[in-house]
Structure formats: C-alpha cells, structure tokens
C-alpha cells in the first residue's frame, strides 16, 4: 500500500547510506564482543530504540559498569579456557544466568534459585560467579535462568562464541576445514512484546501475563531493520551496540551463526542461494564414524528454534544463470570464480523502460555485478560498488515490521560486492 512506502524508502535510504559511509571503519571486521575468559555482567535496565524510533524499556546485561546492552555482550572465548562470568544485579528481581550447551557449570555466591544460584535484587551488592570449561568450540548463548518467561522477554540474553583450538591459524568455526569461512556474522534472533515492557516500565507487575505473548518487534542482534544495517557502536544506539550487515565477494564462504534467543521459532531465509547447515547446538553435523560436517545439508530457509544455535555456510558465485552476471563481452577477461560457460552470454530479456519501473534505493541501475547504469534523478544511490543486495530475513513476513510500520524487524541485507571492493 503506497501510504507505507514513504517510510520504507526513507528508512532504507538513511540506513544504507549511513552504513556505507562507515565502511571505512573497522566496525565490520569480526563479530563484535568481549574477548578473554573472565567477564563481569551486570543486569541493568535501560531503553532500546525500536526501528520505528520508539523507546522500549528493556533489561539487559552490561559489560560490568558499562551501559545496559541488548543483547548482552557477546562473549568470545577460546576452546579449553576456564570461563568465569561474574553476575551483579541492579534489577528489581533476582537474576541468574544459565549456559545451554555447557557442561559442568558451577555457580557460587548469591542465593539458591530453582535453576541455579541467583543474584538478589540488591543493586549489585552480591556477586554470583559462574564457571565452566569451554571444552567444545561453536556458537552458544546464555540467558537468564530466573523468571525466564519475563526476563528473557525483557532482554536478558546474549551470545557466546567458543573459538576452536585451530583458530586463528585457520579461520574455522570448528576444528575442521568444513567450517572454514572468509567472513562470519552473528544472527541472534529475538522478539519483544511491547505491552510487557510498558507494564514493567511502570511497575504494573500484577498486570503482566506472559501467556498472552504478542510480539510486535523482531530483532537481529538487538536491532530492528533498518538499524541492523547501521554500523556497530553507532552513538545514537548506545544500548544496541551490535549490527548485522553481511558482505562478501563471489566465491567466498560466509559463516552464519544463528541463535534462537527469543520464544518463537523463526524461518530465517537468506536470499541469494541455499545455505549449508554445518552445525547445531555447537556440534558439527558429523556421523559417528565420519569426519567433518559429513551430515551437512542444504536449505533455502533455516528454522531457528528457541534456545538452539545453527551454523551455516553461504556461498555465491552467480553460476549457471545462463547469462554473464558481470555483463562481459565474450572477449573480456574472466573474474575470479566466474562460471566460465556463461562468460559473455548476453542478458536474456529486455528490461522495461524507466517510466515503467519503481526503483529500489539499492539498485545500481544495472543488472550486472559491479556495474552501474542510468537511473532517473533521485533514484538508487545506495549501492556504491554495484553489488548485489539480498534481504536476509524472517519469512514469517509479519516479523519484518516495526510495530505497525512496514518495513523493519528481523531483516538485514547481504551485499555481494564485486571483487576488489574492500570488506573489513
């Protein structure tokens, strides 16, 4: 409906332009997070900004004395490390942390809760210490183990990445070459029921009923589209430091680390090509007698289950399109990873005239990778390298909105950049 288009167009434009303007920084180099093996997480309240600009009262884990974060800090540790997480609580009810997929977690200090030791609501006076050996590499997460139906909803969730012993000699997610990648990106998927946050903000605890769950915001790494595509650590999103803007060149391997951090299943659909799922719950899909991810499978939509983590590899070369995706003339030199049989093959159809088309801001004016073409005044402009952009989003399409405004939510963009384009 046309009345919604203006908001989409504007947001898309602002976001992508901001993102592109910041490409020169290191904000995209690796998955952001805290490295080491000893961490202090403080459960605090604060506000996150929805993609529609609304302030949402949120609980989150902070890096010690830092600001509340949604999601909590991504903890990046090395395989074999003895990991210590100290929890302090500045929230109005007891909080704890559980670490799915970790075995032999010990908890000391605080007060005995039902799932684990809890830090009481004492404004940070008590410290609970959780310890575990990060024995196996992979993608994990942590979340509150207290009053979960409210506290996870309120934001007490974060990612853990355990680097394999092979890392960084080999850029692998697990100790096998099947998990090798050129770029890695985190997709921590969550959702929020705004009414619950509003009632919590005003202390209307007796009105909160988590069985009437009705989410209206859907997040990747704590942001809604288009904010997902902004740079990390953008100053105007002080409580949402993480972004999600995957980029790669043809022929490269992109690792998706997908975490079901909320309550709902999400059918996550990376446009552009199938992905190969290589691991679930931080275990390579490996047969008992096999090696590597010999049980890996290909799919065009990845089901994300609450509490589950999925690692998948995405590759793209534009092979077998039946036309030359670079728009080469037959005698032109080949691009790296170009599909030779299509080299120089002409574009197969006649595109409509400009007056017949509605142009997207990410359209370069050319159907060819690394090329630009003529556009009417004011159109395009967001695709400075002539890359191919693909939405990576929840295919429950009601989840790519921000409250009542289309477009937003659980959506980001993959950009396949022409060779030579810098990707930090």
């Amino acid at each position, binding site marked *: 409906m046309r009345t919604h288009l203006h908001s989409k167009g504007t947001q898309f434009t602002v976001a992508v332009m901001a993102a592109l303007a910041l490409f020169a920084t290191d904000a995209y180099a690796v998955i952001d997070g805290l490295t080491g093996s000893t961490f202090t997480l403080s459960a605090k309240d604060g506000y996150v900004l929805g993609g529609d600009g609304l302030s949402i009262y949120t609980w989150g884990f902070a890096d010690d004395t830092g600001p509340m974060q949604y999601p909590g800090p991504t903890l990046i540790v090395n395989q074999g490390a003895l990991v210590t997480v100290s929890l302090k609580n500045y929230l109005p009810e007891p909080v704890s942390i559980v670490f799915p997929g970790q075995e032999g977690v010990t908890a000391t200090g605080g007060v005995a809760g039902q799932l684990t030791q809890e830090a009481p609501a004492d404004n940070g006076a008590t410290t609970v210490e959780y310890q575990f050996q990060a024995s196996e590499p992979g993608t994990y997460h942590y979340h509150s183990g207290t009053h979960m139906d409210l506290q996870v909803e309120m934001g007490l969730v974060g990612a853990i990445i355990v680097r394999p012993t092979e890392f960084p000699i080999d850029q692998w997610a697990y100790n096998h070459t099947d998990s090798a990648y050129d770029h890695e990106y985190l997709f921590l998927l969550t959702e929020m029921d705004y009414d619950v946050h509003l009632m919590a903000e005003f202390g209307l605890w007796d009105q909160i009923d*988590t*069985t*009437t769950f009705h989410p209206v915001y859907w997040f990747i790494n704590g942001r809604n589209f288009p904010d997902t595509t902004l740079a990390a650590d953008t100053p105007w999103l002080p409580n949402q430091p993480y972004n999600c803007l995957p980029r790669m060149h043809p022929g490269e391997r992109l690792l998706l680390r997908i975490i*079901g951090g909320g309550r709902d299943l999400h059918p996550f659909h990376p446009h552009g090509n199938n992905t190969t799922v290589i691991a679930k719950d931080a*275990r390579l899909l490996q047969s008992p007698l096999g090696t590597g991810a010999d049980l890996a499978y290909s799919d065009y939509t990845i089901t994300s289950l609450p509490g589950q983590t999925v690692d998948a590899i995405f590759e793209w070369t534009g092979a077998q399109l039946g036309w030359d995706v670079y728009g080469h003339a037959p005698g032109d030199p080949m691009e790296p990873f170009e599909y030779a049989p299509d080299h120089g093959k002409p574009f197969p159809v006649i595109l409509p005239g400009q007056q017949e088309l509605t142009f997207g801001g990410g359209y370069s004016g050319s159907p060819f990778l690394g090329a630009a073409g003529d556009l009417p005044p004011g159109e395009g402009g967001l695709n400075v390298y002539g890359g191919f952009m693909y939405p990576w989003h929840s295919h429950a399409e009601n989840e790519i909105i921000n409250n009542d405004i289309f477009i937003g939510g659980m959506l980001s963009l993959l950009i396949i950049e022409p060779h030579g384009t810098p990707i930090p």
Partner: protein
Amino acid sequence: MNHKMLKTISCGVLPLMTLAMVAGTATGAEYYLRAEAFTKNLPDPSGVGTIPIPMWGFALDDSFEGLELQAVSVPGPRLTVPAGDTTLTIHLDNNLSVPISLTIPGQITTKTPVFFTDGQGRQRVHSFTHETPAGNTTMVDYTWTGLEPGTYLYLSGTHLAVQVQMGLYGGVTIDAAAGEAYSGVTYDAEVMLLYSEIDPALHTAVDDGSYGTTGPTSTVDYNPKYFLINGEPYTSATLPMSAGAVGNRVLLRFLNAGLQTHAPNLLGMYMSVIAEDGNVYNFPKGQYSLTLPAGQTKDAIVTPSADGAYPLIDRRSDVTNAGGFSLGGMVRFLEVAP
C-alpha cells in the same frame, strides 16, 4: 487375537515385568479404557490456591464397565505394550456426552471415517475412524496390527480440535525387546515426558455447553494458560524425576499432545536424539535442544557423566502457571543418581 488379559501400566519407570513374559510368539496386548469427565485443580497464578478445570480423560478398567483400576486422568494411562506383541486392542467405554474414537498416529489400522453433511451439502469428517457413541452399552474396539516399536500418542480421532485439548490423549510405548526401545537401542532407565496445554476458557465453554452455541464456535482463539508435563504443571512442590544413574543410558521419551510446538532445552547435558514418531534416524543428533511440534514424539538417549538434577525447560518460555511469577509450566528436573 490372543485374548490374554494384559494390563501393563507404568508411570515413568521401566517396567521390569516385561522381562518375565514369554517372548517368541506374536501376541496381542489388550486394554480397557474408559473416557469420562472430571475436574482437575491447577495452581492459581497468584501462587495461592487452585483453579478447578473441567477435563475429559481416560482411565483403565479391568473389563468393559467392570472394575475401575484407575481414576480418570490426563494424560490417560500409559499403555506399555509388552515387547513382542504385534497387535494392540483397546476396548472403549465412553462415559462422555459426545461420541469419541481412538487413533494412534503412526500405527496401522483399518479406518472407517464418520462424515456429516454441512449446510451447503459438503461432506465433513467428524471422526477419523469409527466412533464409540456416548454412553455405549456394548464395548467398541480399536485394533492396530503389525505394531512398530517406539513412542506414540493415542488421541481421540473425533472432533479433534475440541476433544484432544479437553484431555483425550495418552502415551503408548512399544519396545523392540525388553530394555531395548528400538532394535539395537538399549536403555537402562527411562523418563516419559508428555507435554500438553490447557486453555481454561475453552474447557469451561465445552463443559457448560456454550461451545458452539452462545460461546466460541471454533477453537481458533486457543490461548493456553497451563503448560503440563505428564498432566501437571511445574510448581515448587514438584519432585525431580528419577533419570537413572551416572553412566546409564537413559531414554527420554518426549510426547507432545498439546496444540503448540515446544522447545525442550536440557541444561548441563547433550542428548542423542534417536527417533521421531517411532522412526529411528539414520544418524542420531547431538543436541541440548529439541523441536517438539504438536502431535509429535521424539526419543533421546542421555548418558550422564555426573550426578545431579538437570533442568529441562521449555525454551518457548511456557514456564509459568497462567502468568504467575513463580517458576511453573513445562519445567522438570532430571535427577541422576551417583
């Protein structure tokens, strides 16, 4: 059919009596089930007191309208078919006010669906197989042949949208051999975990007759408030479930008789997920999380390396009793002995 009277019941612990049975001949298991309305008391969300919920359930009798071996319950009694039996017969006694029927998804039987004609002359199914009329005076039999081992649900096959959520469901387990869930899949201990939900508003409407008349006319607004494992939500009084000892192969049988997908997450241990709906995977899956869609069963083996109480939580956050603030719903602790 061999009409020996076999009524093997178990409540979460491996029934060793199957070991005593004579194996080798194909025999049939036989049960008498009675369907009946009853009232279940569930915790008030305030944490104080209970709320009565009208339910429908099954109970085990020793013969048709004979000795009542059990009170009616939700879920219905677990039917543990002795290893080696190839047929299962359930004789049904329906004390409800509506016709019902029985299905076991994943097992083979001859089905005679019952249709009715709607106002536009279209045929619609009322029951997936033959019905047991309300207040039947002669028993109605449901027989499955060529039984396949595994973990299954039995459910009403009539007006499912209403009857299943009212409580007409239970678990059936069929082992390949004693202590062997499937051929080659042995276990030392087992835990049965049957998930289901209750929407009190629907139960009340069905019970007081307003469903389909002055109240809701379909189940489309289903909004469950209680989340049960083996018929009970978690409360602070819920005891841990015995899950064998360190080094045991412990079989976790997950069944979902609810209408929604659940996501059991086991903390502190990985499971080896081996089968779904009685079908063994080519390769087991090593996960701490499990997708448990409505109507599905999954079997997993855990081999604990340390004793303790391992939390099993529904990561869909159905861990509350009607929105109350105490831990409730689909939570259990699996107690592993040293």
